[in-house]
């Protein structure tokens, strides 16, 4: 006979199979550094330029002869375009083998895009090498802190800062004459010396990039605390789907996230109690207690929106609904650049 004790004993044996926590701790540590670095990327408002000499005329020198390993998904993305054209300006001409572009982030301030960040990574990995072009004062609090080391970047003085001990993150900042500030971030999990060498090599390879990217979505209405601050557009991929996120952090700390993509799991991931809602021709669910909206657009694109209001104000959910009612998604992004080396 199986009794309660036998079942409990079986579950206890199952619990004993639990994996050690080491991998998750290491992964979270890397992710934390990466998150910080990403905030940085968006926070630096600069003016400056990269080694101008290396700059502007060398488009087409990219490492196209050595494509990354095929660890990026082939995405069915949109036509691209939008209301704001953002010049790419620069990119590294050298990256470690297997690295492809995996993410772009733009800081939008009014009708300008003062900061662009591009991440290269070996497929769907937490490791990344980023190039931040430009700077914005809102990013100042996230500037990497540490003992700077002077580094020459093709004749321009740069400053290299390493954060963390066992698995550091490395930031190399420099500003070529008459160009925006540039920063290469290396968060690869390699040893400090190896990351330093990577950062310097990548920075010295930076060349002009004549390409452009676009900002498609924009807000029609925002509450006052969110309406006057810069916001961010991030484009990338999740598993085999494209994803685009718009985030705004208000002056009072409120955070707004509007996330769009083709992942079917996105909508179904919501397992909380939900209430149906219809906004225009969009159908979906709302979760008032967490101020979340899950919408399915007529073309099948899944949208998640959340207004993270720690004060729990009763007006948050109506505000979120109005934000989405007046939100312009724009053309879906062309992400054919995903995986490009």
């Amino acid at each position, binding site marked *: *006979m199986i009794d*309660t004790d036998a079942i409990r004993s079986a579950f206890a044996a*199952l619990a004993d199979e639990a994996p050690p926590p080491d991998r998750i701790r290491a*992964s*979270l540590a890397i992710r934390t550094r990466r998150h910080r670095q990403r905030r940085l990327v968006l926070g630096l408002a600069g003016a400056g330029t990269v080694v101008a000499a290396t700059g502007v005329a060398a488009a087409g020198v990219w490492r196209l002869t050595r494509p990354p390993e095929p660890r990026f998904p082939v995405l069915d993305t949109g036509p691209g375009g939008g209301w704001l054209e953002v010049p790419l300006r620069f990119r590294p001409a050298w990256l470690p083998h297997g690295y492809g572009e995996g993410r772009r982030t733009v800081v939008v301030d009014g009708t300008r895009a003062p900061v662009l960040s591009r991440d290269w990574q070996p497929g769907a990995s937490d490791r990344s090498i980023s190039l931040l072009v430009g700077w914005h004062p809102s990013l100042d609090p996230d500037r990497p802190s540490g003992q700077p080391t002077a580094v020459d970047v093709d004749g321009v003085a740069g400053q290299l800062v390493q954060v963390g001990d066992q698995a550091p993150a490395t930031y190399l900042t420099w500003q070529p004459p008459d160009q925006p500030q540039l920063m290469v971030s290396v968060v690869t999990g390699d040893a400090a010396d190896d990351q330093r060498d990577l950062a310097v090599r990548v920075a010295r390879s930076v060349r002009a990039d004549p390409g452009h990217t676009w900002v498609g979505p924009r807000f029609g209405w925002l509450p006052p605390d969110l309406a006057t601050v810069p916001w961010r557009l991030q484009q990338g991929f999740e598993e085999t789907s494209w994803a685009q996120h718009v985030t705004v952090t208000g002056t009072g700390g409120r955070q707004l996230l509007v996330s769009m993509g083709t992942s*079917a799991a996105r909508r179904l991931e919501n*397992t909380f109690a939900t209430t149906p809602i219809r906004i225009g021709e969009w159908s979906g669910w709302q979760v008032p207690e967490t101020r979340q909206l899950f919408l399915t657009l007529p073309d099948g694109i899944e949208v998640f929106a959340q207004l993270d209001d720690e004060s729990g104000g009763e007006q948050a959910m109506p505000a979120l609904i109005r934000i989405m009612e007046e939100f312009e998604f724009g053309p879906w992004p062309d992400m054919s650049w995903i995986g490009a080396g």
Partner: protein
Amino acid sequence: MKFEEYVAARLPALLRQATVLAGDPHVAEDVVQDVLIKAQPRWARISEMDVPDAYLRKMIVNELLSARRRLAAARRRERVQWPAPDQDGVDVLVQRDAILQVIRGLPTRQRIVIALRFYEDMADSDIAALLGCTEGTVRSQASRALAKLREIATLQPVREDE
């Protein structure tokens, strides 16, 4: 408590709990990592709760019940080798490993229900609140899981010591 402090103190326990709920240590590791990644940005609010463990347990359960996870779990169940009934009686069937094998092969929601009931000693009402369903649904899920134990193991009725 800061997020890093919580992780340092509670991660092993979370992994044990998730392994029991998932029936698979690899899935548990994956789920716990995803949950912590989601929890980290909103830790300020979570840590204000009296029992952040309970909140994270709900997140773990939600993650396990998500469509993507359920699909993967269904695929795993197809690969489970159910223990063959023993011809000579129930001695082998009550072996812990045989029970474990049945538990691993249960549908996710059934396994979660009996894990919460037998391993976490939660009342059906609390399980219902956690899963966002009625107590009747909890009892139904538990009944099905226990029936599966009986069916697979050709057991006599499972005796619950209340």
